């Protein structure tokens, strides 16, 4: 029963945040940033602890797999452009991914973060579903925990900053 409520709550918070985001478009009104605290507030107010929410979380996180695979469709649609520029695309992505990992881990080391967190930062850039699989291989439990932290935090931060970053860099 709690699980059904939690799933419904998450859907409702997302729908509401989308509506708000459409009326007031801003990095601050993106769903992850807006819906997450909404869900948190309701959980606290109704006294549902995270164990109660955990079932809903793992159920919904299950769909991250197919959601990631679905990203193949826009790629397929743009296959002309991608194939025409195969070399710059592939080399750019590989070098960029490695640079992103090195930068995140390097910054983490400079800031004195634990090994587990640094490992989580390294795999963060491969997107959540793949990273959760990888987490088990890189190290045991603490990394999985840290990975979900890095992922969740990254989802919030990136959804917040991506629109700004794209505008600045392009």
């Amino acid at each position, binding site marked *: 029963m709690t699980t059904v409520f939690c799933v419904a709550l998450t*859907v409702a918070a*997302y729908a509401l945040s989308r509506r708000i985001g459409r009326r007031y478009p801003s990095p601050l009104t993106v*769903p*992850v940033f807006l*819906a*997450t605290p909404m*869900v*948190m507030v309701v*959980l606290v107010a109704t006294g549902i602890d995270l164990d109660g*929410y*955990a079932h809903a*979380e793992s159920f*919904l*996180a299950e*769909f*991250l797999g197919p*959601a990631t695979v*679905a*990203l*193949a*469709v826009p790629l397929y*649609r743009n296959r002309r452009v991608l194939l025409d*520029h195969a*070399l*710059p*695309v592939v*080399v*750019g992505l590989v*070098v*960029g*991914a490695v*640079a*992103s990992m090195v*930068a*995140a*881990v390097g*910054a*983490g080391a400079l*800031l*004195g*973060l*634990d090994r587990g*967190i640094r490992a989580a*930062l390294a795999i*963060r*850039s491969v997107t959540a579903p793949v990273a959760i699989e990888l987490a088990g291989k890189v190290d045991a439990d603490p990394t999985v*925990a*840290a990975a979900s*932290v890095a992922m*969740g*935090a990254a*989802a*919030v*931060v*990136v*959804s917040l*900053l991506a629109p700004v*970053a*794209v505008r600045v*860099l392009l």
Partner: protein
Amino acid sequence: MSASPDGSPANGPGARCGVWATAGIFNRHLAFFFVPIAVGLLAFGDLFRESGPGILVAIIVGTAVGIAVTGGVAEWLLRIGSRSGDTR
């Protein structure tokens, strides 16, 4: 070949089993599936109090470097390619 409103070919590959439509729903609402994971951050209050700012900075640096280097390298290769004219 006619096209549906989302620009996918109505009789292209995957049209009959609804791949375009299904993938479209997932792509449009991708952010939704990250909300529960972000809510799960509540469980890591201690960790955040301890190393939250560090994690934040590392994520921002890693993401910014990733975007900049990917774009920079791809653009550079495109420029060389078009100058020598041997890559399409």
